């Protein structure tokens, strides 16, 4: 399924590039408040780094950095962070997703609390998007047969 490329140039360059891609993903996420960007875009870029690992190396290399079960938990974790932020405002009898209520929890004023609330939910979006993109990509290229593909790679 996924052929080994065994090319020194490609491998070295991708190995160097991966951390930069991930940092760029984080940059896009962090600067989403002041410039174009945000959780979805950042998550896609992060996912691209893992996809590059699969393309340049093999499935095993990508799995070594991001375990299958961890990835599955990440898929759910992002949505949980998002909805959990929404539930937090119930604690102070606010409406769902009313970030202004977070000022009761953290030492900020209600307007700044909205700023931080948004950062929290963007983080949730980023985690889910990254995990799901990687998961869908791996499922599609191996046609669901992760173990068999791993064994083929091992040969």
């Amino acid at each position: 399924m996924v052929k080994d490329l065994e090319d020194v140039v490609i491998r070295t360059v991708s190995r160097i590039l991966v951390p930069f891609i991930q940092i760029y993903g984080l940059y896009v996420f962090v600067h989403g408040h002041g410039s174009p960007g945000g959780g979805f875009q950042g998550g896609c870029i992060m996912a691209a780094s893992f996809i590059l690992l699969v393309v340049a190396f093999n499935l095993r290399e990508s799995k070594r950095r991001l375990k299958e079960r961890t990835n599955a938990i990440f898929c759910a974790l992002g949505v949980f962070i998002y909805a959990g932020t929404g539930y937090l405002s119930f604690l102070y009898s606010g409406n769902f997703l009313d970030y202004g209520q977070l000022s009761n929890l953290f030492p900020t004023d209600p307007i700044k609390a909205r700023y931080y609330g948004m950062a929290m939910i963007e983080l949730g979006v980023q985690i889910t998007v990254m995990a799901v993109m990687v998961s869908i990509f791996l499922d599609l290229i191996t046609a669901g047969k992760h173990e068999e593909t791993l064994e083929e790679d091992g040969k």
Partner: protein
Amino acid sequence: MMLHFPVLLVVVPLVMSFFIFVFGLFQRRICFPLTLVTLAACLLFAGGSFWTVLSTGQPVHYHLGAWAPPWGIEYVVDHLNGLVLVGLAIVALLAAIYAKTMVEREIPVAKHAPFYALYMLQATGLFGMTVTGDMFNLYVLLEIASFSAYALIGMGEGAAPFAAFRYMIFGTLGACAYLLGVGYLYIITGSLNMADLQQILTPLYQSQVVSVGFAFLLVGTGVKMAYFPVHTWLPDSYTLAPSSVSVLLAPLFTKVGAYVLIRILFTVFDPSFSTTLLPATQVLGWIAVAGILFSSIMALAQTDLKRMLCYLIVTEIGYIGIGVASGNRLGLTGSIFHILNDMFMMAGLFMTAGAIQAHFRTRKTDEFAGLHRKMPVTSAVLVIAGLSVIGVPPTCGFFSKWYLLLGTIQAEQWVFMGTLLLGSLLNAILFFRIFERSYFEPRPDPPHLGREPGTRFERAAMSELVPMILTAAFIILLGLFSGYIVQYSIAYAVPKGF
């Protein structure tokens, strides 16, 4: 806390879906109890919101994120969707109880956790579509419900992935048409909130952009509710879906679509626009006439019980369309009541179909001889639900059809009236043929093919029988208390223009 019930109804199943998914990775047994508890909680939330509406007589508004409506998203529970919500919650709970043994039979063990997670997301989507007061929010929830439906159907037998793919092409077409319609309304009004749209749209009814947008909205919801010429995705996908899935999807998804149609026709647009200015309801009615005749005859031609029931869904949607088309208070009462009744009738019928397939090992109606002796409770439920579809008192189907009939008479639409009666007659032929086979045809000796000789007959489990009996009880109770339901709820749900 009562204040938050409308939003809890949607976000609790959403949160639970990923709890089920994550915990299910480690401990599979926990999935089913969590599903059950969540849906029971949803019933509480739906009942609570509806009770608030009934006791105060005012719609409940909930502003998400505390932003006022045209800027933020708003949830509204009024008499119309409160009733639909309670019906949805009850049927979803019964379907979940029923699903327990079915899932163990049909789905590989390793896939139980994602299966139940998708089951929850399906519930999220359906509840959300019903409760929302925002056009775009409805689109997003529609897509959640559709995606989980594609995946759940794709788990079925035989050609299920192919059926799911065709459903997906049609479903995406419908969702995109809906999105396009929302865009047309947005370009001319600048708003996405339903109540706000109604206000702004009233002076704009002469605009062609509004008419085209309206048409696209109708096409979009029409595809999702399997209205006649665009119903072609339904029979294949619901027949091949696993029984546990078709019990949830078949009664609920199309009915929620019908609810959305009524919402668009009479809340987003003024009733005067839909009935007189642009004769949309008339067109819907004539299409429904063709649909009822076509699908009743197609249902008669089927030998597969489940496929027959799928064509029946299309027929029932046609009845709802006729009630809308009569364009008066009685007809619309019938339509709204029929949405509620049809959930229970279809749930009952699909439950029996699943149980017969699982235990009697056949879905072919001409092999049903001796069914009532082997499965007495199941065939009794089949009879009750069948009589309700035909419209025999005291089942609930009679009362909604009665209102539909009175509506067509008041509107002096004799063709619609004739179609209603003819459709009921065709349904009667359909069901009495099955009843005759299962009750009066002598049991063949030796047992017919399709069941391996020597295998012991496996009785239906309690978790299958209890929801079936409860559904049958609801069908009769809804009939007996129809007066109260119409008097206290539907009378206020019918829009003011009538």
